[in-house]
Protein backbone atom coordinates (compact mmCIF):
# COMPACT_ATOMS: atom_id res chain seq x y z
CA UNK A 1 0.00 0.00 0.00
CA UNK A 2 2.84 2.34 0.93
CA UNK A 3 4.57 1.61 -2.39
CA UNK A 4 1.42 2.31 -4.34
CA UNK A 5 1.04 5.72 -2.73
CA UNK A 6 4.66 6.53 -3.41
CA UNK A 7 4.16 5.81 -7.07
CA UNK A 8 1.28 8.31 -7.52
CA UNK A 9 2.21 11.38 -9.66
CA UNK A 10 2.48 14.83 -8.02
CA UNK A 11 -0.09 17.34 -9.28
CA UNK A 12 0.13 21.11 -8.56
CA UNK A 13 -2.83 22.61 -6.71
CA UNK A 14 -4.74 25.31 -8.54
CA UNK A 15 -4.05 28.94 -7.50
CA UNK A 16 -7.70 29.49 -6.57
CA UNK A 17 -7.28 27.16 -3.57
CA UNK A 18 -4.45 29.25 -2.12
CA UNK A 19 -6.39 32.42 -2.66
CA UNK A 20 -9.38 31.15 -0.72
CA UNK A 21 -7.19 29.80 2.09
CA UNK A 22 -5.42 33.11 2.47
CA UNK A 23 -8.73 34.95 2.47
CA UNK A 24 -10.01 32.70 5.24
CA UNK A 25 -6.85 33.24 7.28
CA UNK A 26 -7.15 37.01 6.89
CA UNK A 27 -10.74 36.98 8.14
CA UNK A 28 -10.06 34.90 11.25
CA UNK A 29 -7.18 36.99 12.52
CA UNK A 30 -8.63 40.50 11.74
CA UNK A 31 -9.60 42.19 15.11
CA UNK A 32 -13.35 42.92 15.63
CA UNK A 33 -14.27 46.62 15.81
CA UNK A 34 -14.84 47.56 19.54
CA UNK A 35 -18.46 48.62 20.48
CA UNK A 36 -18.34 51.17 23.25
CA UNK A 37 -21.45 51.82 25.59
CA UNK A 38 -21.08 54.80 27.94
CA UNK A 39 -22.05 54.44 31.67
CA UNK A 40 -24.80 57.07 31.49
CA UNK A 41 -26.68 54.97 28.94
CA UNK A 42 -26.73 52.06 31.35
CA UNK A 43 -27.92 54.37 34.14
CA UNK A 44 -30.77 55.73 32.03
CA UNK A 45 -31.85 52.23 31.11
CA UNK A 46 -31.81 51.20 34.77
CA UNK A 47 -33.85 54.22 35.82
CA UNK A 48 -36.35 53.61 33.03
CA UNK A 49 -36.80 50.02 34.10
CA UNK A 50 -37.23 51.10 37.72
CA UNK A 51 -39.79 53.77 36.83
CA UNK A 52 -41.78 51.40 34.66
CA UNK A 53 -41.71 48.78 37.39
CA UNK A 54 -42.83 51.23 40.03
CA UNK A 55 -45.64 52.50 37.83
CA UNK A 56 -46.82 48.99 37.15
CA UNK A 57 -46.65 48.13 40.86
CA UNK A 58 -48.56 51.31 41.82
CA UNK A 59 -51.27 50.76 39.26
CA UNK A 60 -51.72 47.19 40.42
CA UNK A 61 -51.70 47.86 44.15
CA UNK A 62 -53.17 51.36 44.65
CA UNK A 63 -56.67 51.55 46.15
CA UNK A 64 -59.41 52.40 43.67
CA UNK A 65 -60.43 56.06 43.56
CA UNK A 66 -63.47 56.57 45.80
CA UNK A 67 -66.69 56.46 43.84
CA UNK A 68 -70.39 56.04 44.49
CA UNK A 69 -72.64 53.95 42.27
CA UNK A 70 -75.17 55.90 40.26
CA UNK A 71 -78.27 54.74 38.47
CA UNK A 72 -79.63 57.40 36.17
CA UNK A 73 -83.13 57.12 34.76
CA UNK A 74 -84.21 59.15 31.78
CA UNK A 75 -87.63 58.14 30.57
CA UNK A 76 -87.36 54.42 29.82
CA UNK A 77 -83.57 54.48 29.68
CA UNK A 78 -81.63 53.33 32.72
CA UNK A 79 -77.91 53.99 32.87
CA UNK A 80 -75.53 52.57 35.45
CA UNK A 81 -72.37 54.45 36.27
CA UNK A 82 -70.26 55.97 38.99
CA UNK A 83 -69.53 59.40 40.38
CA UNK A 84 -66.05 60.15 41.68
CA UNK A 85 -64.72 62.79 44.04
CA UNK A 86 -64.86 66.18 42.34
CA UNK A 87 -67.38 65.13 39.71
CA UNK A 88 -70.81 66.66 39.20
CA UNK A 89 -74.06 64.86 38.56
CA UNK A 90 -76.82 66.84 36.93
CA UNK A 91 -80.36 65.82 36.09
CA UNK A 92 -82.66 67.61 33.70
CA UNK A 93 -86.41 67.99 33.78
CA UNK A 94 -86.98 64.47 32.49
CA UNK A 95 -84.36 62.53 34.40
CA UNK A 96 -83.61 61.51 37.95
CA UNK A 97 -80.93 59.43 39.61
CA UNK A 98 -80.11 57.32 42.63
CA UNK A 99 -76.70 57.41 44.27
CA UNK A 100 -75.69 54.53 46.49
CA UNK A 101 -73.37 55.70 49.24
CA UNK A 102 -70.87 52.88 49.18
CA UNK A 103 -67.23 52.93 50.07
CA UNK A 104 -64.84 50.05 50.70
CA UNK A 105 -64.01 51.39 54.16
CA UNK A 106 -67.53 52.16 55.40
CA UNK A 107 -69.66 49.81 53.31
CA UNK A 108 -73.10 50.68 52.02
CA UNK A 109 -74.55 53.41 54.22
CA UNK A 110 -77.59 54.53 52.29
CA UNK A 111 -78.99 56.12 49.18
CA UNK A 112 -79.53 59.58 47.76
CA UNK A 113 -82.39 60.10 45.33
CA UNK A 114 -81.62 63.00 43.04
CA UNK A 115 -84.76 64.71 41.74
CA UNK A 116 -85.11 66.22 38.25
CA UNK A 117 -83.38 69.58 37.64
CA UNK A 118 -80.82 68.95 40.35
CA UNK A 119 -77.05 69.46 40.41
CA UNK A 120 -74.90 67.67 42.98
CA UNK A 121 -71.19 67.09 43.38
CA UNK A 122 -69.33 64.35 45.21
CA UNK A 123 -67.01 66.22 47.56
CA UNK A 124 -65.39 63.52 49.68
CA UNK A 125 -65.50 59.83 50.42
CA UNK A 126 -63.18 58.95 53.28
CA UNK A 127 -63.56 56.58 56.23
CA UNK A 128 -64.75 59.41 58.52
CA UNK A 129 -66.45 61.62 55.99
CA UNK A 130 -68.86 61.11 53.12
CA UNK A 131 -69.75 64.51 51.69
CA UNK A 132 -72.06 65.70 48.92
CA UNK A 133 -72.73 69.22 47.69
CA UNK A 134 -76.22 70.19 46.62
CA UNK A 135 -75.85 73.21 44.34
CA UNK A 136 -79.52 73.34 43.38
CA UNK A 137 -82.56 71.13 43.14
CA UNK A 138 -83.73 68.46 45.55
CA UNK A 139 -82.36 65.29 47.08
CA UNK A 140 -83.89 62.66 49.36
CA UNK A 141 -81.38 60.99 51.64
CA UNK A 142 -81.87 57.75 53.50
CA UNK A 143 -78.81 57.10 55.58
CA UNK A 144 -78.00 54.32 57.99
CA UNK A 145 -74.63 55.29 59.40
CA UNK A 146 -73.06 56.44 62.62
CA UNK A 147 -73.76 60.09 63.38
CA UNK A 148 -71.59 62.73 61.76
CA UNK A 149 -70.41 60.58 58.91
CA UNK A 150 -72.53 61.88 56.05
CA UNK A 151 -72.74 65.60 55.20
CA UNK A 152 -74.63 67.59 52.61
CA UNK A 153 -73.32 71.07 51.86
CA UNK A 154 -75.72 73.63 50.45
CA UNK A 155 -75.15 77.30 49.69
CA UNK A 156 -76.45 78.22 53.17
CA UNK A 157 -75.84 75.28 55.46
CA UNK A 158 -74.30 71.90 56.07
CA UNK A 159 -76.71 69.11 56.94
CA UNK A 160 -75.05 66.74 59.37
CA UNK A 161 -76.67 63.34 59.36
CA UNK A 162 -77.37 61.89 62.78
CA UNK A 163 -78.96 58.69 61.46
CA UNK A 164 -82.00 59.60 59.45
CA UNK A 165 -84.01 60.17 56.30
CA UNK A 166 -84.71 63.60 54.92
CA UNK A 167 -85.25 65.77 51.87
CA UNK A 168 -83.18 68.84 51.12
CA UNK A 169 -83.99 71.53 48.59
CA UNK A 170 -81.94 74.44 47.32
CA UNK A 171 -83.10 77.02 44.80
CA UNK A 172 -81.10 79.12 42.36
CA UNK A 173 -80.73 81.91 44.92
CA UNK A 174 -79.32 79.58 47.56
CA UNK A 175 -82.46 79.42 49.71
CA UNK A 176 -83.06 75.96 51.10
CA UNK A 177 -85.50 73.78 52.97
CA UNK A 178 -84.73 70.69 55.02
CA UNK A 179 -87.54 68.29 55.92
CA UNK A 180 -86.72 65.34 58.17
CA UNK A 181 -88.81 62.18 58.03
CA UNK A 182 -86.78 59.85 60.24
CA UNK A 183 -84.21 60.37 62.97
CA UNK A 184 -82.71 63.84 63.14
CA UNK A 185 -80.37 66.20 61.34
CA UNK A 186 -78.16 68.97 62.60
CA UNK A 187 -78.02 71.99 60.30
CA UNK A 188 -74.81 73.92 60.85
CA UNK A 189 -73.40 77.07 59.32
CA UNK A 190 -70.91 79.65 60.56
CA UNK A 191 -71.37 78.78 64.22
CA UNK A 192 -75.17 78.66 63.97
CA UNK A 193 -76.87 75.32 64.56
CA UNK A 194 -80.40 73.96 64.30
CA UNK A 195 -81.45 70.52 65.45
CA UNK A 196 -84.22 69.16 63.24
CA UNK A 197 -85.93 65.94 64.38
CA UNK A 198 -88.32 63.75 62.41
CA UNK A 199 -91.52 65.55 61.51
CA UNK A 200 -89.83 68.93 61.51
CA UNK A 201 -88.42 71.28 58.87
CA UNK A 202 -86.00 74.15 58.71
CA UNK A 203 -85.46 76.83 56.09
CA UNK A 204 -82.02 78.12 55.18
CA UNK A 205 -80.99 81.41 53.65
CA UNK A 206 -77.68 82.51 52.11
CA UNK A 207 -75.61 84.81 54.37
CA UNK A 208 -77.89 83.92 57.32
CA UNK A 209 -77.72 80.14 57.47
CA UNK A 210 -80.30 77.87 59.05
CA UNK A 211 -83.48 79.45 60.35
CA UNK A 212 -85.48 78.24 63.34
CA UNK A 213 -86.80 74.67 63.02
CA UNK A 214 -90.51 73.96 63.34
CA UNK A 215 -92.74 70.92 63.29
CA UNK A 216 -94.62 70.48 60.05
CA UNK A 217 -97.91 70.26 61.93
CA UNK A 218 -97.35 73.63 63.61
CA UNK A 219 -99.87 76.30 62.67
CA UNK A 220 -99.33 78.17 59.45
CA UNK A 221 -99.31 81.41 61.42
CA UNK A 222 -96.37 80.13 63.47
CA UNK A 223 -94.49 79.03 60.37
CA UNK A 224 -95.08 82.36 58.62
CA UNK A 225 -94.02 84.32 61.69
CA UNK A 226 -90.83 82.29 61.92
CA UNK A 227 -90.04 83.13 58.32
CA UNK A 228 -90.50 86.80 59.14
CA UNK A 229 -88.34 86.54 62.25
CA UNK A 230 -85.54 84.58 60.64
CA UNK A 231 -85.17 86.22 57.28
CA UNK A 232 -87.19 89.45 57.17
CA UNK A 233 -86.33 91.19 60.44
CA UNK A 234 -89.76 90.33 61.80
CA UNK A 235 -88.72 91.36 65.29
CA UNK A 236 -91.02 91.40 68.29
CA UNK A 237 -94.31 91.12 66.48
CA UNK A 238 -93.19 87.90 64.82
CA UNK A 239 -92.00 86.54 68.17
CA UNK A 240 -95.38 87.46 69.69
CA UNK A 241 -97.14 85.37 67.08
CA UNK A 242 -94.81 82.41 67.60
CA UNK A 243 -95.31 82.51 71.37
CA UNK A 244 -99.06 82.74 71.03
CA UNK A 245 -99.28 79.88 68.53
CA UNK A 246 -96.84 77.50 70.26
CA UNK A 247 -98.01 74.13 71.55
CA UNK A 248 -96.11 71.77 73.87
CA UNK A 249 -94.38 70.20 70.88
CA UNK A 250 -93.36 73.58 69.60
CA UNK A 251 -90.91 73.93 72.47
CA UNK A 252 -88.54 72.69 69.75
CA UNK A 253 -88.99 76.08 68.09
CA UNK A 254 -89.03 78.06 71.33
CA UNK A 255 -85.82 76.44 72.62
CA UNK A 256 -84.02 77.56 69.45
CA UNK A 257 -85.59 81.02 69.68
CA UNK A 258 -84.28 81.53 73.20
CA UNK A 259 -80.77 82.16 71.97
CA UNK A 260 -81.83 84.03 68.83
CA UNK A 261 -84.11 86.75 70.16
CA UNK A 262 -82.80 90.04 71.48
CA UNK A 263 -81.79 89.85 75.15
CA UNK A 264 -84.83 91.93 76.11
CA UNK A 265 -87.17 89.33 74.65
CA UNK A 266 -85.45 86.29 76.09
CA UNK A 267 -87.45 86.21 79.31
CA UNK A 268 -90.73 86.11 77.38
CA UNK A 269 -89.58 83.09 75.41
CA UNK A 270 -88.32 81.41 78.57
CA UNK A 271 -91.63 82.01 80.34
CA UNK A 272 -93.60 80.56 77.45
CA UNK A 273 -91.51 77.37 77.42
CA UNK A 274 -91.98 76.95 81.17
CA UNK A 275 -95.71 77.55 80.74
CA UNK A 276 -95.87 74.68 78.31
CA UNK A 277 -93.41 72.28 80.00
CA UNK A 278 -92.34 72.80 83.62
CA UNK A 279 -88.65 73.45 84.09
CA UNK A 280 -87.03 70.06 84.71
CA UNK A 281 -84.88 69.20 87.68
CA UNK A 282 -81.30 70.26 87.23
CA UNK A 283 -82.06 73.17 84.90
CA UNK A 284 -81.40 76.55 86.45
CA UNK A 285 -83.56 79.43 85.24
CA UNK A 286 -80.74 81.91 85.70
CA UNK A 287 -78.28 79.83 83.76
CA UNK A 288 -80.79 79.16 81.02
CA UNK A 289 -81.38 82.88 80.65
CA UNK A 290 -77.64 83.43 80.55
CA UNK A 291 -77.56 80.90 77.69
CA UNK A 292 -75.16 78.62 79.53
CA UNK A 293 -74.38 75.91 76.92
CA UNK A 294 -74.50 72.95 79.32
CA UNK A 295 -77.79 74.12 80.84
CA UNK A 296 -79.35 74.65 77.44
CA UNK A 297 -78.23 71.21 76.31
CA UNK A 298 -79.68 69.54 79.38
CA UNK A 299 -82.93 71.46 78.95
CA UNK A 300 -83.13 70.52 75.27
CA UNK A 301 -82.67 66.86 76.08
CA UNK A 302 -85.53 67.02 78.56
CA UNK A 303 -87.78 68.96 76.20
CA UNK A 304 -87.08 66.41 73.46
CA UNK A 305 -89.28 63.91 75.29
CA UNK A 306 -92.22 66.14 74.32
CA UNK A 307 -91.24 66.40 70.65
Amino acid sequence: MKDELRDLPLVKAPDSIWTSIEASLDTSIKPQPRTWRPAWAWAIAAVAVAVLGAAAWYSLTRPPKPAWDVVRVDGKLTEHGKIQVGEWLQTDSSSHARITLNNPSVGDIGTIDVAPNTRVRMVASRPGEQRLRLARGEISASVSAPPRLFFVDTPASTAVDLGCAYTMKADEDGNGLLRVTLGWVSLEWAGREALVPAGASCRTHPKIGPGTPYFDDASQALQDALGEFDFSSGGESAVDTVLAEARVRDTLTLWHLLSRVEPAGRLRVYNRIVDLVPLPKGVSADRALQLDPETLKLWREELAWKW
Partner: protein
Amino acid sequence: MEMVKLLLACALLPAAASAAGFSLTIGPPVAAGTGTKVTKSRGASFAVRLEECEALDTAQIGGTAEGIVDGERRSAALMIAAAGSPGVYVVSQAWDQATQNRGVWVVSVNATCGKATAGAIVPMAAQGFVRDATKVLPRPATKAEVDSALKALDAATR
Protein backbone atom coordinates in the same frame (compact mmCIF):
# COMPACT_ATOMS: atom_id res chain seq x y z
CA MET B 1 -94.63 37.37 115.37
CA GLU B 2 -95.57 41.03 115.16
CA MET B 3 -91.92 41.90 115.67
CA VAL B 4 -90.91 39.61 112.79
CA LYS B 5 -93.45 41.28 110.51
CA LEU B 6 -92.17 44.68 111.55
CA LEU B 7 -88.58 43.68 110.83
CA LEU B 8 -89.56 42.26 107.45
CA ALA B 9 -91.43 45.42 106.60
CA CYS B 10 -88.43 47.51 107.58
CA ALA B 11 -86.18 45.32 105.48
CA LEU B 12 -88.40 45.67 102.42
CA LEU B 13 -88.96 49.38 102.85
CA PRO B 14 -85.83 50.57 100.97
CA ALA B 15 -86.62 48.39 97.98
CA ALA B 16 -90.19 49.61 97.88
CA ALA B 17 -89.14 53.20 98.37
CA SER B 18 -86.57 52.97 95.59
CA ALA B 19 -89.28 52.03 93.14
CA ALA B 20 -92.05 54.27 94.43
CA GLY B 21 -93.51 56.10 91.49
CA PHE B 22 -91.71 53.88 89.03
CA SER B 23 -93.08 54.54 85.57
CA LEU B 24 -92.18 54.80 81.90
CA THR B 25 -91.89 57.90 79.76
CA ILE B 26 -92.27 57.47 76.03
CA GLY B 27 -90.77 59.95 73.58
CA PRO B 28 -89.45 60.27 70.05
CA PRO B 29 -86.11 58.69 69.16
CA VAL B 30 -84.44 62.08 69.37
CA ALA B 31 -85.15 62.06 73.11
CA ALA B 32 -82.73 59.18 73.55
CA GLY B 33 -79.89 61.59 73.00
CA THR B 34 -79.67 64.68 70.88
CA GLY B 35 -75.90 64.59 71.12
CA THR B 36 -73.69 62.11 69.40
CA LYS B 37 -73.89 59.38 72.00
CA VAL B 38 -76.68 57.53 70.26
CA THR B 39 -74.81 55.60 67.65
CA LYS B 40 -77.67 54.75 65.38
CA SER B 41 -81.27 55.84 65.38
CA ARG B 42 -82.40 54.78 61.93
CA GLY B 43 -85.31 52.45 62.32
CA ALA B 44 -85.86 53.58 65.89
CA SER B 45 -89.54 53.75 66.70
CA PHE B 46 -89.43 55.57 70.01
CA ALA B 47 -87.45 56.06 73.18
CA VAL B 48 -88.32 54.84 76.68
CA ARG B 49 -87.07 56.22 79.96
CA LEU B 50 -87.39 54.49 83.29
CA GLU B 51 -88.55 57.07 85.84
CA GLU B 52 -88.03 56.99 89.60
CA CYS B 53 -85.86 53.89 89.54
CA GLU B 54 -82.82 54.05 91.75
CA ALA B 55 -81.74 50.49 90.97
CA LEU B 56 -81.15 50.98 87.28
CA ASP B 57 -78.39 48.39 87.23
CA THR B 58 -80.90 45.66 88.02
CA ALA B 59 -83.84 47.14 86.12
CA GLN B 60 -85.16 45.14 83.21
CA ILE B 61 -87.09 46.09 80.11
CA GLY B 62 -88.76 44.04 77.41
CA GLY B 63 -91.65 44.03 75.05
CA THR B 64 -93.29 42.77 71.89
CA ALA B 65 -94.93 44.24 68.85
CA GLU B 66 -98.53 43.16 68.45
CA GLY B 67 -100.37 43.62 65.20
CA ILE B 68 -103.28 42.78 62.98
CA VAL B 69 -102.18 42.05 59.41
CA ASP B 70 -104.69 40.99 56.78
CA GLY B 71 -107.16 40.33 59.56
CA GLU B 72 -104.80 38.03 61.43
CA ARG B 73 -103.29 38.66 64.84
CA ARG B 74 -99.47 38.78 64.73
CA SER B 75 -96.67 39.14 67.26
CA ALA B 76 -93.14 40.26 66.46
CA ALA B 77 -89.93 40.72 68.39
CA LEU B 78 -88.50 44.13 69.16
CA MET B 79 -85.00 45.50 69.29
CA ILE B 80 -84.44 47.37 72.54
CA ALA B 81 -81.04 49.01 72.93
CA ALA B 82 -79.64 51.04 75.79
CA ALA B 83 -78.99 54.66 74.83
CA GLY B 84 -76.25 56.93 76.11
CA SER B 85 -78.11 58.06 79.24
CA PRO B 86 -78.77 55.62 82.11
CA GLY B 87 -82.28 54.20 82.10
CA VAL B 88 -82.97 55.34 78.53
CA TYR B 89 -83.62 52.83 75.77
CA VAL B 90 -84.32 52.99 72.05
CA VAL B 91 -87.02 50.66 70.76
CA SER B 92 -86.75 49.70 67.10
CA GLN B 93 -89.03 47.68 64.93
CA ALA B 94 -87.74 44.28 63.96
CA TRP B 95 -90.58 43.49 61.62
CA ASP B 96 -90.39 44.56 58.01
CA GLN B 97 -91.83 47.83 56.79
CA ALA B 98 -94.09 46.16 54.26
CA THR B 99 -95.80 44.25 57.04
CA GLN B 100 -96.02 47.47 59.05
CA ASN B 101 -97.71 49.21 56.15
CA ARG B 102 -100.20 46.37 55.55
CA GLY B 103 -101.52 46.16 59.07
CA VAL B 104 -101.84 48.01 62.35
CA TRP B 105 -99.35 47.57 65.16
CA VAL B 106 -98.90 48.50 68.78
CA VAL B 107 -95.84 47.96 70.93
CA SER B 108 -96.30 46.63 74.44
CA VAL B 109 -93.38 47.56 76.67
CA ASN B 110 -92.90 46.35 80.22
CA ALA B 111 -90.19 47.01 82.75
CA THR B 112 -89.24 46.16 86.30
CA CYS B 113 -87.31 48.10 88.88
CA GLY B 114 -86.78 45.96 91.91
CA LYS B 115 -90.25 44.66 92.69
CA ALA B 116 -92.01 47.52 91.00
CA THR B 117 -93.43 47.10 87.51
CA ALA B 118 -94.53 49.43 84.77
CA GLY B 119 -95.79 49.11 81.23
CA ALA B 120 -96.96 51.00 78.21
CA ILE B 121 -98.96 50.42 75.04
CA VAL B 122 -97.57 52.46 72.16
CA PRO B 123 -99.57 52.57 68.91
CA MET B 124 -97.45 52.84 65.78
CA ALA B 125 -98.10 54.73 62.55
CA ALA B 126 -96.11 55.19 59.38
CA GLN B 127 -94.53 58.37 60.74
CA GLY B 128 -93.65 56.87 64.10
CA PHE B 129 -95.38 56.33 67.40
CA VAL B 130 -98.77 57.91 68.10
CA ARG B 131 -98.19 60.05 71.15
CA ASP B 132 -101.80 60.97 71.85
CA ALA B 133 -102.94 57.34 71.93
CA THR B 134 -100.00 56.05 74.01
CA LYS B 135 -101.01 54.56 77.35
CA VAL B 136 -98.63 54.39 80.29
CA LEU B 137 -99.52 51.81 82.92
CA PRO B 138 -98.30 50.99 86.44
CA ARG B 139 -97.93 47.31 85.37
CA PRO B 140 -97.47 45.28 82.21
CA ALA B 141 -100.34 45.60 79.77
CA THR B 142 -102.84 42.77 79.71
CA LYS B 143 -103.78 40.94 76.53
CA ALA B 144 -107.22 42.51 76.67
CA GLU B 145 -105.70 45.99 76.84
CA VAL B 146 -103.43 45.26 73.87
CA ASP B 147 -106.35 43.88 71.84
CA SER B 148 -108.42 46.90 72.71
CA ALA B 149 -105.64 49.26 71.64
CA LEU B 150 -105.25 47.37 68.36
CA LYS B 151 -108.96 47.55 67.62
CA ALA B 152 -109.01 51.27 68.35
CA LEU B 153 -106.00 51.83 66.07
CA ASP B 154 -107.54 49.68 63.36
CA ALA B 155 -110.74 51.68 63.52
CA ALA B 156 -108.88 54.98 63.48
CA THR B 157 -106.90 54.06 60.38
CA ARG B 158 -109.83 52.83 58.31
